[in-house]
């Protein structure tokens, strides 16, 4: 089988995942399409470095890096440096505060929040938090996979995830309060 045929068989099936991630990170369909095309060309170039059958996280890492480069160039204000060393412990505490939320009526309310509301709130999340939530909850990737895609430790993935969920929860609540 030629290199191109192998690429089309192993990498191309993950086009939806690539587009979904790029669409959530750029928040714009045209920019997402440009980023995805660029990412696939890079993937073809570095195809020999793909080992085993981990094509999806491998491709998504390229898409994610292409997105971040694109954001840094075109929307530098959206890419803010995060002090993860300082936020991990703080997140562990805030996680303690929000534990037990499942039974809370607020959460039940949240679950009925419509798709549009969730989409809008998620889009407004800072990109570093948005990307881990998209990868975990929409793309259903494991912590380990997210860690390798984003190039951050698994502990940071968890802390960003819980902090991101907390921010998202508040954003949705605020929107619902304003709507009612």
């Amino acid at each position, binding site marked *: 089988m030629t*290199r*191109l045929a192998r*690429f*089309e068989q192993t990498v*191309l099936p993950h*086009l*939806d995942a*690539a*587009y*979904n991630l790029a*669409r*959530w990170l750029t928040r714009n*369909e045209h920019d*997402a*399409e440009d980023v*995805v*095309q660029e990412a*696939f*060309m890079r*993937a*073809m*170039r570095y195809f020999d470095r793909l080992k085993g059958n981990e094509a999806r996280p491998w491709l998504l890492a390229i898409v994610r890096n292409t997105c971040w480069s694109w954001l840094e160039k075109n929307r530098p204000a959206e890419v803010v440096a995060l002090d993860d060393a300082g936020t*991990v412990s703080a*997140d*562990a505490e805030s*996680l*303690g505060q929000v*534990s037990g*939320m*499942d039974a809370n009526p607020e*959460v039940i309310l*949240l*679950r009925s*929040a*419509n*798709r549009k509301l*969730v*989409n809008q709130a*998620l889009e407004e999340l800072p990109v570093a938090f948005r990307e881990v*939530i*998209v990868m975990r*909850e*929409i793309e259903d990737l494991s*912590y380990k996979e997210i860690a390798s895609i984003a190039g951050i430790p698994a*502990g940071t993935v*968890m*802390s960003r*995830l*819980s902090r991101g*969920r907390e921010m*998202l*929860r508040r954003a*949705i609540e605020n929107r619902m309060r304003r709507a009612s």
Partner: protein
Amino acid sequence: MSLGTRKDPGEEPLIARDATYYRAPDALRARVMSAVRREAREEARPAFWRWGGMAAAFAVVALVSWNVALLQARGSEEDRLAREVETAHVRSLMVDGHLNDVASTDQHTVKPWFEGKLDFAPNVADPAASGFALMGGRLDYVNGRAVAALTYRHRLHVVNVFEWPSAGGDSAPVLLTRRGYAIVHWTHGGLAYWAISDTAGEDVLKLAQLLS
């Protein structure tokens, strides 16, 4: 780690599960596939051919500035032949059955077919391994004489290669483009070659190299 023991993060409510999963539009799928193929082709091509087109362009520019008069004389001859070659190429593809008098992928079938029909033995190659499959050949009429026209398939593109005897010495391939067609002409071993196709100029140059 305390985070894990305090609460299994996997059990947290999925806040964003109602968010949209954006599927790639069909147009993007097509766009990505063609970009990937372009990228694969670019990689497969040796550096020589990547820069060959540019080098050829520089060479032509240099020639122009060196001797305008000579080039004009050659240019009108070249232009006339290019027009004839283009006409013959287009006509060969107009109706099914025009392309080949002898349709065969076997060079040992195609070459003997010309015997007795021409006053020279055309060069018939089969560079299928390099991406150019022999399709067959026919008689045609170019430059005021009967010539051999060999046809090769490169992916979905047909390449016509016209051959006739030339008194001049060998000359390196020259790439021309006319109305979207890539035309490459060169002289080798006493034969003038004119190759034409709607594929990329580099591809026709590659065939020229394979036939020389």
